[in-house]
């Protein structure tokens, strides 16, 4: 077990742009399915005024060499993220349950395959 780290201060997220300035085109997160049978994987982000443009831009920016057969674009503001600290207690319940892994169990020699 790692030493217990001090919990991070409450997250302050990037606020809205200053009021005197027009907001630029929103940010989108791009997810790409490399080929059929695989799940969509985060590829990066881009700016676009709407979902349609975001899809077109994502095609041009992230799939110029056939890297994808399907694209999702998600407004970045719609994503809820866990705490950035991966040693955070949030993930602690998974750390001490070794019996969840098959390697925890020793099988008798006679069992050839399981």
């Amino acid at each position, binding site marked *: 077990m790692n030493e217990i780290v001090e919990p991070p201060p409450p997250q302050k997220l990037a606020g809205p742009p200053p009021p005197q300035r027009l907001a630029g085109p929103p940010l989108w997160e791009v997810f790409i399915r490399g080929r059929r049978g695989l799940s969509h994987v985060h590829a*990066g982000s881009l700016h676009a005024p709407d979902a349609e443009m975001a899809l077109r831009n994502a095609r041009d920016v992230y799939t110029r060499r056939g890297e994808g057969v399907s694209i999702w674009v998600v407004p970045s503001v719609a994503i809820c993220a866990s705490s950035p600290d991966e040693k955070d207690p949030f993930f602690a319940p998974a750390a001490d349950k070794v019996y969840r892994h098959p390697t925890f169990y020793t099988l008798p020699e006679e069992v050839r395959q399981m």
Partner: protein
Amino acid sequence: MAERDHLEPGEQSPALARRFDEMLAEDDRIEPRDWMPDAYRATLIRQIAQHAHSEIIGMQPEANWITRAPSLRRKAILMAKVQDEAGHGLYLYGAAETLGVDRRDLLELLNTRKQRYSSIFNYPTTSWADVGAIGWLVDGAAITNQVPLCRCSYGPYARAMVRICKEESFHQRQGFDLLLTLSKGTAEQHAMAQDAVNRWWWPSLMMFGPPDDQSPNSAQSMAWGIKRFSNDELRQKFVDMTVPQADVLGLSLPDPELTLDGQTGHYRFGPIDWDEFARVLKGGGPCNEQRIAHRVKAHDEGEWVRQAAAAHAAKHAPVRALKPATEAVA
């Protein structure tokens, strides 16, 4: 994900600072919402922004030849390459934004000359062979610089570099292929290739930055895992790789002092004109004015497109919001 979220710069906590140092020591990656020292953040913003600026300004010298490419095949290749450079700029501006800056502000800093781009792009492309020399030498030098950045301590920058490096190898090869064709062509074509290499060789060596003893920020960047090799180490690596390739091309490099040192196995090369480097960096290169003027013009002329896209989005936004999801996506 949601890589824009971040702790406010300047927030301090000794425990978080310790975590940061531990992660660097373990060669772990720093991610956008991790705590990081202000100076680390500022250094990355400046470096990534200037890298992004270099990618998009770098489109200009080559795009200069798109309309005059000697064949449809070469034209298609060159367009693909220039389009890639735009993409590289976008990956990098995206990586910079994860540090809490706005791409529009970075472009403003470029347009008002408050941030720099690689000084190599302030040289003109005076012949078709320059397209080959840029691919072979300039992209070659860029690759040498960029491959170690794939292991940079800052996750989004490293990921952008992985993507970029994959694409760069085509850039270098098409340049080599172009030069080889010219070199083996008519005497006039051969001379054109040689002239281009003569002009691009020294500026390419300058791309690695000042010598180690005159590069005050390098040590800190190394300690932060942003930089993995020194300027001189990378320059030497590039020279060692490139000299044998020049032989294959049947072209010479414009340095009478270039010799293989049997003891070290490295090529020794002549002195670099650092005065020229400083002069071009400060704005005194042949094309500094032209590059920025063109960049500002393109930005201003694109304003109506940005406005139209925003207006279109605003007009259709309510309709889209009402449309139910038609499929489970995952």
